[in-house]
């Protein structure tokens, strides 16, 4: 036991032994510099204490308290035959509020008269790093009648190791969809990591590590925002991503310099977030900045540069500047074909985007050619129910619809739906989209029952997750009205057509093509229904 080494293990053992041998009120103070380590130690300690026949009561403070004695439950008397221990967590909150921590500390000083009466049992206070120093200075009375002090710490190398571990976890998770549970877990992990880093001594290295964690958090928020959330929630999430990424960039840039490749990555991420937020001009600006650095640093054939070209192309596509979109996408493809294998998924993505642009330009043959190339690669390298494959099938279906080849369109859309149902959350936007497209193909094919069924499925999802005045909802109502009209069921057709117009009226001004078209549809249905004398 009294070896030469004083480390977490010995401290643990000493704390354990102290607690098992203590009777009546005793104050034990523990300082731990890492919240994850603290949780692990507590869990282990509780397990061992309970195995030794003791009862552990764990209390967590969730807000700053004025007085410890008041916070802890009154008259905490142990039950007969019980050997209790009371542990208190969360005091870091009370310590960190600089205004009130003084008062809190001063009051701690008087606790000696109150605490032992209220709690005639060992009391363990788990404190953040720096707490001891404060207590020694501001609450010396409390300090002087402690029965024991213990230190647990994570050495800096371990913090780094933890960080590497979280990155590895992320890579392993790969392209799987992000569930809310995973999101929250990973966010908690990153937050904890950030807090740990913040307790380490200040240094450039430390700040860069913090910036890295913030960047990871931004990516996490961004990724999570892509699952179908109500629009306001999605924006909220994206704003978090934006804030985090901006913060990371703000730290990195001055330390690394404005031409550092890492600044390029951060800018690139920033651009993606802006894009998701629909703030395309800002996205373009951030991305052009990243590209400038990358062109300087990497030379003309770097995959990172290709990736940036790709994203810039999509931004231009969003801005409606198709020529520029095409130009940059071609640049991307040129590099990707050179440096990636011919079956590389990234290359496939580039082909996919090229196809989109060609389709927007109305060049359907080229659109089809590239979409087929995409599909070919994905079928080779991805699992058969990979979402990206589903997306590719969806695009193919769309092109075939445009080309009027409805059977093929149907085939591919069914494939899309099948995969989407397998891998996506039942309320995912892409699933809603897949159902919608399927519905429209069935309608075009005259299979109205099926068209109706799938449109109702779409609606079900949309009604669940969108606000009641969402244009997408209006579109579904409109589609339903069209299907019912084809079925010659004019009552529901009218009903849905009216609902569609009602929403659109709120969102768009008179003369807007969306509004006009829905109104026209309503008018047509009214006319058609009157013809049949209803």
């Amino acid at each position, binding site marked *: 036991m009294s070896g030469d080494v004083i480390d977490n293990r010995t401290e643990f053992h000493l704390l354990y032994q102290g607690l098992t041998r203590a009777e009546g009120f*005793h104050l034990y103070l523990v300082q731990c510099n890492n919240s994850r380590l603290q949780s692990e130690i507590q869990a282990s300690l509780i397990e061992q204490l309970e195995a030794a026949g003791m009862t552990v009561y764990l209390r967590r403070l969730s807000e700053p308290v004025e007085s410890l004695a008041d916070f802890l439950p009154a008259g905490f008397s142990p039950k007969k035959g019980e050997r209790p221990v009371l542990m208190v967590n969360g005091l870091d909150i009370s310590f960190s509020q600089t205004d009130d921590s003084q*008062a809190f500390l001063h009051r701690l000083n008087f606790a000696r008269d109150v605490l032992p009466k209220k709690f005639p049992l060992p009391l363990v206070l788990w404190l953040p790093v720096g707490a001891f120093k404060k207590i020694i200075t501001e609450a010396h009375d409390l300090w002087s009648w402690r*029965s024991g002090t213990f230190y647990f710490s994570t050495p800096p190398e371990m913090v780094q190791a933890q960080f590497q571990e979280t990155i590895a976890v992320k890579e392993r998770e790969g392209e799987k969809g992000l569930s809310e549970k995973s999101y929250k877990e990973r966010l908690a992990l990153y937050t904890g990591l950030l807090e740990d880093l913040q307790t380490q001594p200040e240094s450039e290295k430390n700040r860069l590590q913090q910036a890295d964690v913030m960047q990871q958090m931004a990516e996490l928020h961004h990724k999570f925002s892509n699952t179908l959330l109500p629009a306001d929630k999605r924006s909220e999430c994206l704003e978090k991503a934006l804030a985090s990424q901006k913060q990371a960039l703000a730290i990195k840039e001055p330390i690394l310099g404005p031409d550092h490749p890492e600044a390029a990555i951060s800018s690139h991420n920033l651009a993606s977030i802006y894009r998701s937020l629909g703030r395309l001009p800002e996205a373009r600006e951030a991305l052009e900045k990243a590209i400038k650095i990358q062109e300087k640093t990497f030379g003309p054939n770097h995959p990172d540069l290709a990736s940036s070209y790709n994203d810039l192309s999509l931004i231009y596509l969003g801005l409606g500047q198709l020529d520029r979109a095409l130009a940059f996408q071609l640049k991307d493809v040129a590099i990707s074909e050179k440096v990636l294998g011919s079956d590389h998924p990234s290359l496939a993505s580039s082909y996919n985007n090229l196809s989109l642009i060609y389709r927007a330009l109305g060049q359907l043959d080229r659109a089809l050619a590239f979409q087929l190339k995409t599909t070919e690669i994905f079928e080779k390298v991805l699992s058969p129910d990979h979402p990206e494959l589903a997306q590719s099938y969806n695009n193919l279906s769309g092109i075939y619809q445009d080309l009027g080849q409805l059977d093929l369109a149907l085939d591919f859309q069914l494939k899309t739906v099948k995969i989407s149902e397998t891998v996506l959350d039942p309320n995912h936007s892409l699933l809603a989209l897949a159902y919608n497209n399927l519905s429209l193909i069935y309608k075009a094919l005259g299979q109205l029952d099926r068209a109706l069924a799938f449109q109702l499925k779409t609606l079900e999802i949309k009604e669940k997750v969108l606000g009641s005045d969402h244009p997408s909802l209006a579109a579904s109502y409109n589609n339903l009205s069209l299907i019912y009209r084809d079925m010659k069921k004019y009552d529901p057709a009218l009903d849905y057509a009216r609902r569609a117009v009602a929403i659109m009226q709120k969102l768009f001004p008179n003369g807007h093509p969306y509004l006009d078209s829905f109104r026209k549809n309503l008018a047509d249905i009214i006319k058609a229904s009157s013809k049949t004398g209803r």
Partner: protein
Amino acid sequence: MPSTTEKKDKLYRLLIEALRNLDPAEAIDESDPRYVNCAQVRGEEGIVVTKIHQAILRASEAGSKPRTILFSGHNGSGKSTELKSLEKELTQRKLFTVKIDAQEALDLEDPYYIDILFSIASEIERRMRENGMPLPQPLMDSIKNWFKEIEIEKTTDADVSADIEAGVEAGAKIPLLGKLFTRAKGKLKYSSTERKTIRQKIEPACSQLMGFINAMVAEGEKILKEKGYLGMVIIYDNLEKMKLAYPGNSETGDGRSTHETIFIDNSHHLAGILCHKIYTVPLSLLYSIHHARLGQLYDLPYVLPMIKVSQTRSRKRDEKGIAVLVQVAGKRLDKDRIFGNDDLIQEIASFSGGNVRDFIRILRSLVEQVQPEDLPLQKKDIEFTFRRITREYETAPSDEEFELLARVYESFAISNDRAHFRLLNNHFILAYDNGATWYDVHPALQRVAKFKAVLENITSQGK
């Protein structure tokens, strides 16, 4: 022949028994079998309690002016124990003690002399009443009226009728004034807004409050003398725990600390109560620039120094002081079975710097750690514990403080400034007495690498 497990069990129980007696937070008094009189080894000043009670006795017997004594010492030096002793001694010598605990009576975060005076008045009334010697009704009535006049406490009709119905039976019911005192006291302690109001009302009428208090004391002592007492002594404990703050331009104004405001600026109130009084005060105040002034305002302040475990300037062990601490240990645990011999205990005594609480804590730590089969404790066990404790001193002082400490180490003296007072307060510097006060850096702190480095730096620079 006891089996090994039986032996082990026995030893284990020894350890548990020892732990029962090693609670650093416990304050014991003379009657406790574990009590060891440390007076002799605290230095000349050490025989403090005796000095205090002699002073009081003499004054009482001679009928001379009542004494106001300031009493202080480090945390864990045994102040409360000594005061308990004192209270007993005084009572035995027929002095009626009114003991007040600042922690109960005041809000120590916002201390003010008015609150202190008020609590004294309240306690005198209560103590006299509870001991079957209630203060005379006319006096109580005039105080009641005064309350009403300055609107501290309004007597409601309900109060009055309850009072009438109850009659004022000493000891059986609490008289109206007692209730009023308690209510006002509660307001002063717990409500910061009420506190302000009450203080504002009393302050201009403070001389009246003093008048009433002294009237209570005078009447009280009359009654006490009839019952065979020599007089009244107020013992106000734990005042040193009051917050040291510099409220700036609030009520106290011009950068005076709370301590200075109470003990210096309002000394005439504290000292003006006409019976013997003992107030505990913060150590840093006694060692401040006001030291001389305090000597003028009050009867010579007494400080309970650390037990002298080393000698000035040589830092050689002081055998007497160490022997006393060994005695303390001996009364709390089975020395022979747990330590084998006294050498290790002496080391611990030395390491503790003479602070009894720290000494007990170190003993506790050792007893907690050791396995029964590893008894008796060894030197390596002691060293291990010392190393653990040294950590507590490693990061606490700032860079400037390390420098200050190094200089104190060299000179055995401190400067009268806030920085040093903080260090005294934190026990980084300890005070000793051998006819004059001298100071040293806490032995645990002396082992800290950074301290040694700074010290070397200073000595090599030739100061």
